[in-house]
């Protein structure tokens, strides 16, 4: 086995060589603390400012509306808790298919006395804006909906929800970790007041991310200490990380559109290649309103982990839709929310393609999937599961 194919870009991506090159000096010669007034500090501060301006230009926002954080999880915690705690009490609206960073933040707020409505999704994983309208209450203080789901890739009707939020005067947080740098995210057009975005999903380094906070949005900090990030997020800036994120974003501005088109075609080719070779398969997620590189495919009556293992042995990296730990299996909360029957949900495998994916990779993966699934099904009791 020499061939290696990485189809897990929704989990993480390799750092772009240009990003790495840009970061390296900040692990070496430029090591000052951006808060220091001396020359060493000023060099670091200048690098942070350049990165912030690049990201602001990409998002078409003001640089001072951006706060750097340690990751998408922190951004989501900050977004949701920052909006809620600034208002003290009230009602929040989110959905059942959010990332755990949002879901568990919402649960933590429930424990503090906030009320939370978790909206359902349809069978394609899509939220109905009318459900948002119906869920709004006089005491609703925030709405948090993800832009696209990481597991099935369904892109949510964020624009329609943003209009409702505006009309109701309720701040709107969007977890855009899976869309930022992959598809266009226009915070003004979408009516977004707070936006979580990350670096390592777009060929930047891990350990750095950000939160956009629209100017004038009432928000409290959740991390206290020094006066960094205009007193919104304490802690010495991760200068190499910020430089890397800034460069990664600049590259996305250059490559995003062409790559989205190319990757979408490959994604559809992968589904075609599998659909025509393997019986009893289904595509989980929206047929068209979906992230460019994401294909979540269900194999009926097969356990996804056996497929992941079989493909891993062929050098292919994909991820399982159900997680089995110590003999306890948890079907994905997203597939459960979509109403995917258990005999399909247990066999869900996500492939997420990216900039390095080629047509040859896709053909190899489709053929390998057919081989592995046939083998696993051969050992399978008829009608089990």
């Amino acid at each position, binding site marked *: 086995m020499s061939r290696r194919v990485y189809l897990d870009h929704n989990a993480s991506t390799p750092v772009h060589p240009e990003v790495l090159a840009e970061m390296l000096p900040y692990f070496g010669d430029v090591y000052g603390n951006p808060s220091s007034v001396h020359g060493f500090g000023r060099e670091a501060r200048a690098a942070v400012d350049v990165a912030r301006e690049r990201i602001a230009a990409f998002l078409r926002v003001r640089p001072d509306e951006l706060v750097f954080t340690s990751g998408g999880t922190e951004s989501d915690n900050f977004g949701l808790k920052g909006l809620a705690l600034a208002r003290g009490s009230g009602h929040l609206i989110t959905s059942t298919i959010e990332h755990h960073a949002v879901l568990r933040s919402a649960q933590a707020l429930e424990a503090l006395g906030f009320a939370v409505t978790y909206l359902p999704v349809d069978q394609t994983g899509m939220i109905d804006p009318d459900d948002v309208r119906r869920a709004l209450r006089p005491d609703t203080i925030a709405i948090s909906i993800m832009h696209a789901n990481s597991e099935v890739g369904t892109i949510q009707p964020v624009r329609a929800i943003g209009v409702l939020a505006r009309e109701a005067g309720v701040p709107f947080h969007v977890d855009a970790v899976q869309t930022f740098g992959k598809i266009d995210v226009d915070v003004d057009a979408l009516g977004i007041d707070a936006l979580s975005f990350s670096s390592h999903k777009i060929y930047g380094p891990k350990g750095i991310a950000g939160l956009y906070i629209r100017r004038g949005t009432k928000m409290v900090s959740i991390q206290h200490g020094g006066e960094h990030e205009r007193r919104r997020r304490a802690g010495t800036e991760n200068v190499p990380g910020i430089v890397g994120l800034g460069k990664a974003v600049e590259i996305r501005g250059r490559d995003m559109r062409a790559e989205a088109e190319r990757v979408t075609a490959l994604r559809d080719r992968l589904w075609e290649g599998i659909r025509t070779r393997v019986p009893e398969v289904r595509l989980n997620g929206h047929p068209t309103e979906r992230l460019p590189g994401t294909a979540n495919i269900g194999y009926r*009556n097969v*356990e996804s*982990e*056996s497929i992941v*293992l*079989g493909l891993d*042995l062929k050098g292919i990296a994909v991820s399982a839709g159900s997680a*089995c*730990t*110590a*003999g*306890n*299996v948890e079907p994905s909360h997203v597939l459960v929310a979509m109403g995917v029957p258990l005999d399909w949900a*247990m066999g869900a495998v996500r492939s997420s393609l990216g900039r390095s994916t080629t047509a040859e990779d896709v053909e190899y993966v489709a053929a390998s999937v057919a081989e592995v699934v046939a*083998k*696993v099904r*051969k*050992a*399978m*009791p*008829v009608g*089990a*599961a």
Partner: protein
Amino acid sequence: MRYSATLVDHFLNPRNAGLMRDADGSGSEEFEGCGDLTRFYLRVRDGRLAEARFQAYGCGPTIAAASVATELAAGRLLGDLSLLKAQDIEDALEGLPEDRKHAAEVAAGAMRAAALDALRRGNVDNGGA
């Protein structure tokens, strides 16, 4: 790789997979936590296992454990097989990670059930045991 070469080999090339018609005994075991399921069909000659076939639904280790169990059990007395331990299967797989021990338990439970079923049917010579 978190799995042994033997486990991977049995997962990729399962021995004796599939249904057996007119078996002398059959038995299955399901692991409640995750729904993993293993079923064995036994053919018996002179109180000893002549042939075993399996069907399994589950993760890679579960399939490998069922496969290795059919080899491990070949030629053994039904009485022995009715007492088969998960550790015997785990040893034959050259170990299992802590969170996949259930694979051997499911296979051992299914093999014990199948052996008991064959003994119960009584139409096989129990090898003088």
